[in-house]
């Protein structure tokens, strides 16, 4: 259990997994992979493997939660029992309940809530494997799933963390860096509106370090944003090619 590495950054300035301080882990995004859902997305961010599905707008359940002037956004962040080293009980933990709330708060500014009064939009997030930064990868996936469902949005939401390990501000902390490092700052962004929709921090940072960490995280967000848009386009390119093949047959 206590195999904490002494140094998180080596003499060459590289991290445990060989990344430079401002380098993201490999990210893979796919859209429209759950046929039953109105929208869905799959994210691999480092070793994180996360699914997000959107159902709705649909009838509100329970009914008394319905709002007369806008839709109700519900969000459930959930980790699979096998997603972490020691089995996690499938019952929602306090951490999962808090994350469900902050993820919902991060997505809501992007949605035109007033377009669907007296309805509910469900966002379900399942973490199949966790590797540090699951809340950020979850937001990236959930925003894609919302876009895939066709719900009108002001912008996509994309999230990425920065933090401090061994006195260096680094981008996109993986599990060990998150646990052993001295601070973690997850940030969610709507890039076109320059709007931060999630910001948390734990650890110890000076004000200057905090500013650099946020700015670095925002750079990371922008890189993933490009991939998000690409993933949405890819889905339709694929559909077009499938149709073409069918027509030729």
């Amino acid at each position, binding site marked *: 259990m206590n195999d904490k590495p002494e140094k998180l950054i080596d003499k060459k300035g590289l991290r445990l997994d060989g990344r430079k301080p401002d380098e993201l882990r490999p990210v893979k995004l796919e859209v429209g992979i759950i046929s039953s859902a109105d929208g869905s997305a799959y994210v691999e961010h480092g070793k994180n493997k996360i699914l997000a599905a959107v159902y709705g707008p649909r009838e509100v359940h329970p009914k008394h939660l319905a709002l007369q002037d806008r839709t109700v956004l519900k969000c459930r962040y959930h980790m699979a029992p096998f997603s972490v080293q020691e089995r996690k009980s499938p019952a929602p933990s*306090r951490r999962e309940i808090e994350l469900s709330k*902050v993820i919902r708060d991060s997505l809501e500014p992007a949605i035109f809530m007033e377009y669907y009064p007296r309805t509910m939009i469900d966002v379900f997030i399942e973490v199949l494997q966790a590797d540090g930064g699951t809340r950020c990868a979850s937001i990236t996936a959930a925003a894609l799933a919302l876009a895939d469902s066709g719900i009108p949005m002001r912008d996509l939401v994309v999230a990425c963390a920065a933090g401090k390990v061994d006195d260096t501000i680094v981008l996109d902390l993986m599990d060990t860096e998150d646990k052993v490092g001295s601070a973690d*700052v997850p940030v969610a962004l709507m890039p076109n509106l320059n709007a*931060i929709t999630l910001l948390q*921090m734990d650890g*110890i940072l*000076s004000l200057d370090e905090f500013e650099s960490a946020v700015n670095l995280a925002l750079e990371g967000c922008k890189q993933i944003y490009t991939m998000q848009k690409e993933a949405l386009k890819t889905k339709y390119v694929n559909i077009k090619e499938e149709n073409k093949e069918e027509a030729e047959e």
Partner: protein
Amino acid sequence: MVAVITRVKQKQIAQMIAKEKRLDGRELTDYRETKIEQGIIERAEGSARVRLGKTEVVVGTKIEMGEPFPDTPNEGVLTVNAELVPIASPRFEPGPPDENSIELARIVDRGIRESKAIDTEKLCIEPGKKVFVIFVDVYVLNHDGNLIDAAALAAMAALLNTKMSKYEIEDGEVKIKPGYEQLPIKKHPITVTLAKIGEKLVVDPVLEEEQVMDARISFATDEDDNICAIQKGGSGYFEPKEVFEAAKIAKQKANEIRKKLNW
């Protein structure tokens, strides 16, 4: 959450704040009058009541012996819980903690934990086997906004008021000795929350301001000018420059409060 004030009043509050005026006459960066009483519950190992304007929070601490976490075998355990009891607001319902009370407890927890406020290594009795577990229970008695700051302040005040039994180990058994000692405290984090209403940042929002705010952001800072914990909440957003401005204001306000309290 359903607002319990009229749209007219919501609009009025928003318009006033756009002109940098508040309902209660405060400046945008003014904190409400803060009153702290410690040791109000004799049965608890430590306790405090904080009044932040009309908002009122009581925190009691209890200490038990328990097992340490496997990854920190030499450290005592901190557990924070928050109860939004129905006595405090027409919107609170009895029952298991909902997402709001869980978020509140976890923000308070993070401020104390990440600032390393408690010297948890001194709470170890037998490494890997026996440590002291500190229970911090936040009890909201009246909700007039900014429960986060009131709860965080009350929790710190209660911890500073917490006494532990002295003990000795005899043949591997823990024996309680007469007398008490103070819970070892290393840092004094203070949490300051700002609400964004329109284009403005407002310190220490009252309930009515919370009902019109776009979003809120809370910063826990320590006496060495470090930020130890942050939480953004609410369904709006902040621009990066607003976040940095809020951080500076929060740090400054925390220092003012700390100076007043002599923490």
